């Protein structure tokens, strides 16, 4: 399952932006920079959408097989 996920580009993109979102949100909170916080939250939403689509596709293909 994880190997299949890693091979899906949506998962990789979701993971990448998820990490960036965590970094930006934390710097936004600890350094009190609104721009980092807002961008971090937006990237986080984007990341969740990509990860969700990827996982849904993987589950679908597993069910089919």
């Amino acid at each position: 399952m994880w190997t299949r996920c890693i091979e899906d580009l949506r998962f990789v993109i979701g993971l990448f932006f998820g990490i960036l979102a965590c970094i930006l949100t934390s710097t936004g909170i600890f350094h009190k920079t609104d721009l980092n916080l807002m961008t971090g939250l937006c990237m986080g939403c984007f990341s969740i959408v990509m990860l969700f689509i990827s996982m849904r596709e993987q589950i679908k293909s597993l069910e089919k097989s």
Partner: protein
Amino acid sequence: MNLTSNLSWIDYLIIGIYFVFVLGIGIFLKKKVKNSNDFLMSGRSIPLWITSMAFISANLGAQEVIGMAASGAKYGMITSHFYWLGAIPAMLFLGVFMMPFYYGSRARSVPEYLFLRFDEKTRGFNALSFAAMTVFSSGVSLYALALLLKTLLGWSFDFSILLSAGIVMIYTLLGGLTSAIYNEVLQFFLIVLGIAPLVFVGLHSVGGWEGLQQQLPATMTHTWKYMSEASANPMNVDALSITLGLGFVLSFGYWCTDFLVVQRAMVAKNMSDAQRTPLIAAIPKIFLPFVVILPGMIAFALAQSGKGFHLPLKVDGRVDYDMTLPSLLIRFYPTGLLGVGLTALMASFMSGMAGNVTAFNSVWTYDLYQAYLKPHASDTHYLKVGKLATITGILISILTAYLAKSFNNIMDFLQLVFGFVNAPLFATFLLGMFWKRTTGHGAFWGLVSGTLGAAMTHGITRAEGKGGWLIHTPIHQFTSAMAQAFWIAIVAWSVCFIVTIMISFFTHPKPDQELRGLVYSLTDQPKSTEVAWYLRPAPLALGICLLVIVFNYLFF
């Protein structure tokens, strides 16, 4: 300008994470490369959303991100002609009319289509000129990236070149075209999400769109209103030359015939996806001016408003428009987001370079090596040649980057050569795909004449000190170098078009049965019945066309 002291470990961490992901994609895709088709053509198995994003990202290189922001600061909203006039119509034409021939003919490259449609010499001419252009273009991209890293991060020129070229080489060599395409998609999202906050905060600081309009001259906030005369707009180009030169010849010449972008559609899973690749890519392309041009306009407005922001200057005191976007990043982005912004800039350069290198290795392997040097070797041999071509392409790019460092005008020269080669090529394709009487001799001599016509026009005219090398007193002085470039393209296209027709009338065309699948009148049009009607190429193209008309009207 030196940013080294302003970058914290968080910014470097973000840059490092990006490098890890880029290389990781290459490593994970390595096991999928089993033959030359996988390495050079991605096994024609890439899903539509990936080919579409890669299609737009392959063009989202240095010239686009840095150059369009620079043009935004210099010319304003008029720069959006490079999108709404100079890209979208050509992308729609490629998707609806040309992809059926590229994909349906099963050609592996644009030069190979020329071979199937015309003959060997036409393929050879295009393959050679394209291969040379791509590696030089990749080198110029590398040079610009190294210069940026040196200026912003304080890294040495040599280290920047070796690091960037090394990373592109590793991921391209491991995963081939698939790796380059996957990375282009990641880079696309990074560029958009990394630069979009700048537009938000920049617009906020100048008082929104209304505030921006108040602080900029009216000529910088409209697209068509001041185009009736060249002297009335900052670009010094009139409506006729921009419509014919950019909107027709140059844009169709680039988007419809340049293998670098067409390759992304050719690796789609099926004909329907191949046709829809440039159409889907056109949708985000319509909105890109707001990400890449608007920051330049914001920078100009900020500089005018006296809020302590100044446009960056060169050593000689002139405005360095190319540094507009980086200087805005420094101004607005805090630690963390600055790392994202800089990584987005690096991504744009690397995606441009990887795009060029992957197009080069395909054309070298299929259209030069297999066609002329070793036609009947095993697939394993061609896979090795493809990998060697990747390494060689990157080494030549490094060499070109150092050449660009030594000769200031090499970028202008290359830009000029692109115009000479791409403009007549569209005439060849237009006639080849839509007029079955066009012959191989006509196409070849048309291309040669068009290229010579372009060179001669440059030699006998002058603009901003450029051109006029053929005669002592130039016969025409253009209002700007851009107007000159547009007219050179128009002449090149016209000469190629006329010469191809004339020679075709005096030479024998191929029989109809050899042209099936290659020429419009002899090919059954594909029917995309498996998707909803509104997702089929023609309705999709119509919808996008209407959208682009709306944008032209809104910013008229």
